[in-house]
């Protein structure tokens, strides 16, 4: 953003220039009209024209001068502010390590900003000491007071600060914002709560996990936003996921998000919870469950048949994920179905099936070689040969030999 301060003077100046131009052009139109009807001599029209041009030039010079002056002043003002923030950063750092005093109370906005920036970067024992210092100097109280403001921007700034501060004592007020009518506030509150919960290891952790799981259910966030938020939970993600995946009332979009997080964090311990969703009525949930199994690299024994059956799902993206998850089903169970899937009408399913066969060891590679040679579908033969070549299992010159009739 090129302008950070001075919105009001800039708006007033632009308005003044606009008014001058409107008046000037109005006067010019009036003068020309009078000349047209022969009321005014030509010399007076020329005078009016020169006057309006001079007015325009003065207005533009004023505007340009303001912009240049603004940039010159802002630059030096920002440099000074950065230097003060650096000095505050050093003071916070020294205070955490016992080499100096905490910044004086009440904190200036720059001291608060420096403390929050530092806390945003620090975790572990030092981070906790800094969090405590922020609490003692009233940073939390300042941010919570700002959170109660009626202005949306103030609330958003407060939530951003609280997300950086990650103070367990602010968790409850933050989670209350998760039902705010504005979606952006709900998202920021969920993210701030997740970041606070991520570091929570002491008393009250289970209650906070339960509160977060209830809150994220009420936040009504899009599935992707909910998943990104839950990824911020780090070590406490399994606690929240466990609640969401065992609760029958979890909304479908949140269920998809939870399964996505299982896959992205490779939480193999939720393989069973993912497996039971392979036959869910919603195709996006089925795909998310299969994707989670594929990413976690584990398909429970009782879900193997479901994965194989999902290779025949009506929805293309479900079949793609099923083909990927099938790489983690024993080859003697999955290989025949993957062999058939090489002839799927979707290029993506054919590719995923071939890659899963390749990963399934010697059984899978034997099935791929057989497919390259003898699959009834021409596209399946081509895909099998291509994947074998890409993996350098066969050389390009061997392809024609492989495809030749025995």
């Amino acid at each position, binding site marked *: 953003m090129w302008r950070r301060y001075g919105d009001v003077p800039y708006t007033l100046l632009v308005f003044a220039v606009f008014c001058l131009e409107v008046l000037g052009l109005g006067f010019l139109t009036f003068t020309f009209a009078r000349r047209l009807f022969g009321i005014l001599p030509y010399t007076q029209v020329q005078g009016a024209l020169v006057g309006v041009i001079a007015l325009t030039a003065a207005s533009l010079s004023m505007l340009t001068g303001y912009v240049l002056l603004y940039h010159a002043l802002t630059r030096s003002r920002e440099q000074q502010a950065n230097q003060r923030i650096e000095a505050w950063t*050093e003071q916070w750092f020294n205070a955490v390590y016992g080499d100096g005093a905490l910044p004086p109370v009440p904190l200036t906005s720059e001291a608060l900003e420096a403390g929050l920036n530092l806390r945003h970067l620090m975790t*572990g024992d030092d981070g906790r000491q800094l969090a405590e210092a922020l609490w003692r100097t009233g940073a939390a109280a300042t941010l919570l007071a700002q959170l109660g403001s009626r202005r949306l921007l103030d609330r958003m700034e407060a939530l951003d600060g609280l997300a950086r501060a990650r103070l367990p004592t602010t968790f409850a007020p933050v989670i209350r914002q998760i039902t705010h009518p504005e979606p952006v506030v709900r998202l920021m509150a969920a993210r701030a709560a997740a970041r606070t919960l991520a570091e929570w290891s002491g008393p009250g952790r289970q209650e906070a996990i339960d509160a977060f799981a209830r809150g994220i259910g009420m936040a009504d966030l899009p599935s992707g936003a909910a998943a990104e938020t839950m990824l911020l939970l780090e070590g406490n993600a399994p606690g929240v996921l466990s609640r969401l995946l065992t609760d029958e009332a979890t909304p479908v979009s949140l269920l998809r998000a939870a399964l996505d997080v299982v896959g992205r964090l490779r939480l193999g311990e939720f393989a069973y919870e993912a497996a039971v969703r392979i036959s869910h009525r919603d195709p996006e949930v089925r795909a998310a469950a299969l994707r989670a199994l594929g990413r976690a690299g584990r398909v429970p024994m009782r879900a193997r048949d479901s994965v194989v059956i999902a290779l025949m799902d009506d929805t293309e993206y479900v079949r793609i994920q099923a083909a990927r998850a099938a790489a983690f089903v024993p080859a003697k169970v999955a290989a025949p179905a993957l062999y058939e899937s090489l002839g799927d009408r979707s290029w993506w399913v054919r590719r995923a099936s071939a890659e899963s066969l390749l990963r399934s060891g010697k059984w899978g590679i034997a099935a791929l070689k057989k497919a390259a040679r003898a699959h009834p579908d021409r596209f399946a033969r081509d895909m099998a040969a291509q994947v074998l070549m890409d993996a350098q299992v066969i050389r390009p010159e061997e392809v024609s030999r492989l495809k030749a009739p025995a």
Partner: protein
Amino acid sequence: MSSILVIDDDPAAAKLLELALGRVGHQVDVARDLSSGQRAARSGHHDLMILDVFMPSLRAELGSTVPVLVLTGHRQEEFLARAQEAGATGYVTKPFSVRDLLAEVARLTG
């Protein structure tokens, strides 16, 4: 103690690294952008570089053979594996514990 070059465009992170590393006696040079970082890296007197930017070919871009510690907000394994493939010797994820950072620096500067 070692000479360490920090390349980080986040003033707070650069200051924290400067303070934390300076506190245990390391000599720290800070570059706030990649081009000044590249110039400093080519001076060749550093024992370790810490940077928060990821480039597909770290070592070639920096023109240096000293160990590179990547400071990153990414926690996903794919990104960390790619950073190592590109020439990063180690990584620390943000937010970090100063103790862990110093341990990693000690390991890399041996």
